[in-house]
Each structure stands twice: as C-alpha cells, then as structure tokens.
C-alpha cells in the first residue's frame, strides 16, 4: 500500500504559452500566467491546489517538450 501523487513541472524557458496543455488537462491543473515573463511570453503554470492524475495529456500535446511529470510514491507509515 502506498500513497502516490504526481508532480508537474513546466520548463518555463521552453514554454511559448500556446495554452494547449491547459486545454487538454482534464483536471484544470494548469493555467496561463496573466503577466508576461521577461521574454514577453505568458507561460503555462501549475496550480498547487489541484491534484494531477498523471494522465500525461499535457506532456503529450506540448509542442515544445516543456513539461516534465514525476510520480512520487511515499510508503504509508504504519
């Protein structure tokens, strides 16, 4: 028995703000920043308050390979 969660990381320097990850995420985990970054791009970002289910839709659709996903398993302490 283990407790698992998924960590989504946006590699912001590769992101062009196309928004496809936001559209395809079934959980609403991702959003587009309101404020442009130093490159003038409104990059994708991750909501801390929404859980990722690890479906990989966002990483699969991302045209810029700007998303990394890690599964974290923590053994349940007894």
């Amino acid at each position, binding site marked *: 028995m283990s407790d698992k969660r998924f960590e989504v990381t946006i590699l912001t320097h590769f992101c062009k703000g*196309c*928004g496809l990850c936001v559209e395809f995420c079934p959980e609403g985990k991702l959003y587009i920043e309101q404020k442009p970054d130093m490159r003038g791009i409104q990059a994708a970002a991750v909501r801390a308050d929404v859980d990722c289910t690890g479906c990989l839709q966002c990483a*699969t659709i991302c*045209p810029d*390979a700007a998303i990394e996903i890690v599964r974290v398993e923590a053994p349940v302490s007894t």
Partner: protein
Amino acid sequence: MRSGNAGNGMGKKTTTKRTESEVKRVLYERPRALLDVHTHYCAGCGHGTMHRLLAEVLEELGVLEQAIGVAPVGCAVLAYDYVDIDWTEAAHGRAPAVATGLKRVHPDKVVFTYQGDGDLASIGMAETIHAANRGENITVIFINNAIYGMTQGQMAPTTLIGQKTKTTPRGRDPETTGYPLKVCELLDQLVAPVLLARTTVVTPKHVRQTKALLKKAFQCQMENVGYSLIEVLSPCPTYWHMTPMEAYHFIEQTVTDSFPLGVIRDVKDRA
C-alpha cells in the same frame, strides 16, 4: 489507423529516483536527443511535436548514433539545431536525392528526410516520386500544414480549396490553382513503397498514434523492408490566422475532410 502504443502512452523508459523514503519515477521528461535550446517555431506549431517524437523514437530504437537526417528548406530548415544527431541540409525539394546518396553509401545507417509540403510536394515532387519509386530504403517525414510558413503564408500544393493565403487572397480556386495534392494516395500508385500513412498531432491520442507510425517507419528501414513516408497534418496557427487551439480544432474538423487520416499502405502488415 493503427492504435497507438500501449502503456503510459509516451513509451518512455521510466527512471527511478529515491529521496529519503519517497520513490520518484519520471513519467515524462524531454528526450535526451532534443538539444537544450529554444526553437524558432511559433507557439502551437506542429514541428515542435514532431521533433520531440523523432528524438523519442530514435532513442527508443537505439539508433541515435546511426541516424543521419536531411533537413529541408522551409520552416524546419533549422531542424539540425534541435535534434542531436548527424544532419545535412538539402536544397529546396532535393532532400530525397541527398538521402539517396547518403543511404547508398551507408546502407547500415538510418537515413531520413524531414520535409514540408512546399519542399516535398511542389518543388521536390520529382525527387519525392522517384525516390519512392526506386524504393530507397529511407524514411520520409512529411509535415503537411497546407501553407508556406517560412515565406509568410503563400499557397502550398496542399492548401485547401477556399483557403485564404498570401497568394490566394480570395481563397484557393481550383479552376486556376488545382486541388489539394494528396501525396500518400499519389505514391500509393507505385509498387515500391512499403508504408504510407497520414496522421496528425492535434490530440494526445493522435500524437501517440503518430509516434507509433513513426517508429514503424524507422523499423521498416532498419529491417531493410524499404521506403516509408509518414504524412503529418500539422497546425500553422500563425499563417492560418488562428489561435493554437483553433488551428488544432481546424485540423480535426476540416483539414481531415480533404486529407483523410489512416494507413494508406502497409506492406509489412499485409505480408
């Protein structure tokens, strides 16, 4: 259309990291062969997805060190700046001829061309047809976005009827400019090609299918089966004057009417 590969979809080998009592497994990360650079492609452009799939497939097949790419003239002219393998450029449309020279000298290497619709189906149509007709044992990756992107949006041979471009300002008129050119169906008239398929990258499911087809195309070459061409309907939000999401929907809802998705020929399966 064949279904995509099973499992987590990306088909990547997962790696395991241990931090204290937690176990971290990478489900998806950038492929090693994708160079650590920002590409020049517009937001939402399909080239980025295809570069990523190319890098993943070559890595998964274990042929990164055997691969030789031929880059086109067009938006993907700088493909060699993004995927970490041996590359050469080719003059506009001549990639299949260059690949022919490379492959005949190095039959044991994995040689592919990466070409757009203007490059492959307009200025380079003779080279395309004859390389296919000779059954050159190469893999052709054909990015069809129905427009000339690099030169700012002129009509391509694959431009849809009625589609507005810089050179069809009132929409493509078949009376004077002909019809969208179906490369896979055209090549299907030839004896030699072994795999001809049309796919797209506009949903995660399609991306997985495209990856599976791309892998199969390279396997055809590695097993000396022969010539393969994978046509990818690819979005060009900038010169379609759409948002990325609109362009993705446009492919699913409209472009596929003119260019139906599917495997047009698969000799390997038939055998």
